């Protein structure tokens, strides 16, 4: 898996502001000569308006994910994990705080620039896959590459390679409805990897799968991490989180601690 590391170049290419201060080295980083962190979050707050009272989903989150790290974000339902993930991916806007992704502060970006940043640096995997029903597995994967500007032949080639890598080449012409849950999630992971993102964000990727499917997906994440892919995975399962290099716990909208039990493999 080829991973981009030149954040300054990215920022210049996208005409986006660099962070005011260089963030501290991430846990697991190898010292002054190591690449900068993939993700830096500072003081992130988000409140949703509800019928009865506002829901404070995030109450000031600080988090740094280093290059090549596999971080599991754990917490009970309603703790704010998914909200955090969505803010990191730029799928929603924070009320306060900053997210620096690949060296670029996302809160200052407009819709188009944020989209370009996301397509270049972020791959997203969801619990319920969110594949497009009307498209085959191959088309679902290739669509991501096409959106990023790949030529049709290149996008098809890349999609086919990814499906082959994930053991789904024979299913390339099937629509999602004809695939098992595990196969759908693998297609979703292939789609997330289609643009060679620097950061893979996964929101309960095993939550809708049986144990075999979950093991299959977890194994795949481990392989990706071994190849240098940076991964931030949200889960409420300790078993699933156990596969990660580092576990971060969350409750009531704040991070509780930073677990470094996992080492890069």
């Amino acid at each position, binding site marked *: 898996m080829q991973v981009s590391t030149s954040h300054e170049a990215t920022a210049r290419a996208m005409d986006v502001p660099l962070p005011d201060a260089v963030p501290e080295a991430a846990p697991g980083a190898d010292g002054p000569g190591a690449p900068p962190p993939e993700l830096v979050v500072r003081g992130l707050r988000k409140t949703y308006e509800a019928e009865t009272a506002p829901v404070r989903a995030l109450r000031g989150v600080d988090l740094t994910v280093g290059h090549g790290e596999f971080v599991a974000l754990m917490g009970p339902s309603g703790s704010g994990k998914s*909200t955090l993930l*969505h803010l990191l*991916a730029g*799928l*929603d*806007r924070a009320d306060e705080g900053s997210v620096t992704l690949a060296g670029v502060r996302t809160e200052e970006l407009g*819709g*188009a620039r944020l*989209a*370009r940043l*996301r*397509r*270049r640096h*972020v791959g*997203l995997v*969801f619990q319920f896959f*969110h*594949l*497009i*029903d*009307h*498209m*085959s597995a*191959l*088309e679902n994967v*290739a*669509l*991501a590459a*096409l*959106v*990023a500007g790949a*030529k*049709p032949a290149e*996008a*098809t080639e890349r999609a086919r390679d990814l499906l082959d890598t994930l053991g789904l080449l024979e299913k*390339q*012409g*099937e*629509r999602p*409805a*004809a695939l098992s849950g595990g196969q759908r999630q693998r297609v979703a992971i292939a*789609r997330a990897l289609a*643009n060679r993102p620097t950061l893979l964000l996964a929101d309960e990727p095993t939550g809708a799968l049986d144990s075999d499917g979950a093991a299959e997906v977890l194994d795949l994440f481990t392989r990706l991490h071994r190849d240098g892919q940076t991964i931030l995975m949200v889960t409420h399962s300790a078993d699933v989180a156990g596969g990660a290099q580092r576990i971060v716990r969350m409750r009531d909208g704040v991070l509780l601690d930073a677990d470094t039990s996992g080492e890069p493999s």
Partner: protein
Amino acid sequence: MADAFGAIRAVARAELRVGWRATLLMGLVFGLVAGIVLGGIGLAGRTASAYPRLVDAVHLDDARALVAADQPQLAAAVPSLPAVAQARTDQAWIAQIDGPALRFVSIGAPTTEHDGLVEPVIVDGRAPARGAPDEVTLSEPLAQSSGLGIGATLTLRMLTLDQVSMFDVGFGPPAGSTTTVRVVGIARMPAWGGALANVQAGPAFAAKFLPDIVGYAIYARFTAEPDAAQRFGAAFARTAAVVDQISPSVVSQYLPHTVELPSATVDPSVRAAEQVLVGGLIVFVVVLALGGLQVLGQSMLRHHSARGATQRVESALGMRASERTAARALAAVGAAVVSGVLAGGVVLASGWLEPLGSQARFEPAPGFRPVWPLVVLGGIGTALVFVLVVAIAAAVAGRRRAAAVPPVRAAAVNPFRRWPAALLGMRLAMHGRVGRGGVPAVATVVAASLAMAGVVAAVAFGASLQRLVDTPARYGQAADLTIVDAREADIARIVADPRVAALDVGATGTAELADGEPLEVASRDVRKGHMPIAVAGGRMPTGPGEVAIGPRLASGLGLDVGDTIEVRRVQGGTVVLHIVGKAVLSSQNHGGIGDTAVVTPDVMRAIAPGQPLYDAAVLAVPGAADALFAELSQGLEVFQREVPTAVANLADLVTLPELLALVLAVVAGAGLVHALLTAGRRHAREVAVLSVLGATPGQVRATLAVMAATTVLPALVIGVPLGLGAARVLWWQLATATGVAGDLAVPGRLLIVIVPAVLAGALLLSLAPAARAARTPPAVALATG
């Protein structure tokens, strides 16, 4: 069972709490649409039944004949002829009326009481009093053309029978009695003219002016035998022949022994107009009904699909699908009642609507005329349909959520388009309802195509109708003025007038085909300029073996340009005439269009026995027609161009296709707006996924624009040619029935404008879901989509 009903009621209450506004709104919309649909059905019924109801109301006769006053024995014999169940004999007069132009009218009056046979409906005023010789009613057409109304006085200068016999040579001032009468009523009949006089007087008039009568108008009702008309016709012809031998009439050339069959003969233009009106209304009703059902169904499906999770919970609690459906149907009962009441109210109000277009002239009972069964049953039916649609939508939504999506074997991978927006946009447009609410894409395309076809057909039909009405030559009225029985000296003087652009002397007579069928023939002797007679195909005859026949005649005989007809010669034997064209002429005998065969004057003399009717057709230079008419009508019987009844009937319809096109366009537009907006909502998740993949707002807008364009393009590609084809068929049928040219006026400008306009509209509409997508964070759309 009681437990189940309790659960149903509880769920219904919950449904009402959450969705009563939406359900009530849909009830109101559906009630309004259903009311318009049912009102349209009622109006179609009133329009279609106007003519037969008038026939019943006036006790229309089966047979009618005009007999000359010098053959009273023939008039006296008619009531006792075979197949006559009832008969009535009126006296008839012809009188010149005072006015700016020379004009003659026929007058009829009964001598005795007549029970239930030919009683015109009085639409304004009253019938003449029995003892009042100075009171008359006018036919509606005469009242309209003369401008005479109730209370107007009319000086009648009656002709003698001898003067009538000199119509073709001139007879000086009227020599009969002169009287002044007062118009006391305006009368309505299915048709006027022939034996039925446009001025109707009472028995006192008949008694007072008995010496001046020129004929007898005899009306008869047949017995119920199937061959009554044939038996009566044969007996009348035999009797007339005998009477002719004993005492020939001096006006035999003007009063041939012909029998009219009013109840069996309906003016084809009336039928054509009725078909167009009722057909248009049916299209309107069907489109509106389908549109209403689609909108209701789609909305309800979406409404219940959005609450699919609730149904899953109810299912987990043990409620069966039928119970869940029943609960939702129960919750919709209130809205259904509202929709039924509203629909019934609209139908009731539609009782004020008179029959459409020309058919209003046949309404025997103008004014408020509600169709109570339609009001009551329509209201109940609307409520039931509303509940049914809600129940079906709830059942479908419940099943969709409960059942697993069946695996679908995908087709081979299609080559990707260069543009991801095109790839996804087209896919979304072509897949209307996978997993979520909404109708199949094919249904949207079919509905939009039909609506587009309807709009194009209505506009093309309307354009053809407008062109016909605006172009007198197309209905055989190329001349501005027609001078009856013009003499050569007058013709020479008129030809010399510089205000005259063209003048033809026409002759009209009756020839016989080889099989004995009568054939009205006419010839045109060009004296000056060029008279723009409409030729629907081919050309006018120029030689002795050529004929151009009218479109209706051609249709009736099954002939076309290039065929031949065999006609009897006056001197014996037959002559074969080659059909070289289809000429549209208006008959000088009966005003019909397209029934006449046009030949050269030489052929006319060879095949038409007896004295033809001569007329001079005058085309004035632009702007001179009125002055010429005013001058010529001082001494000659001159008629200005008159729109034939058939065309007048059609002229009343001119706005109908435009109205229909407008309604169809509104319905189609509303349907398309609804389809595109709901499609945008339905595919909000896919659009959010596209954003997740890094699509820019521009790419999202493009995707939705492609989806909108892909939805409407098939409608244009299919609908436009389909509409033109339908219009061509419909116009050809109407034109053939009317006797005018059947070529369709293709609305080129509309066709040039409609495609980009519809596409532009669709693209504009796609901005709404795009704006919503831009407003809604993808995270929210994914969570709720």
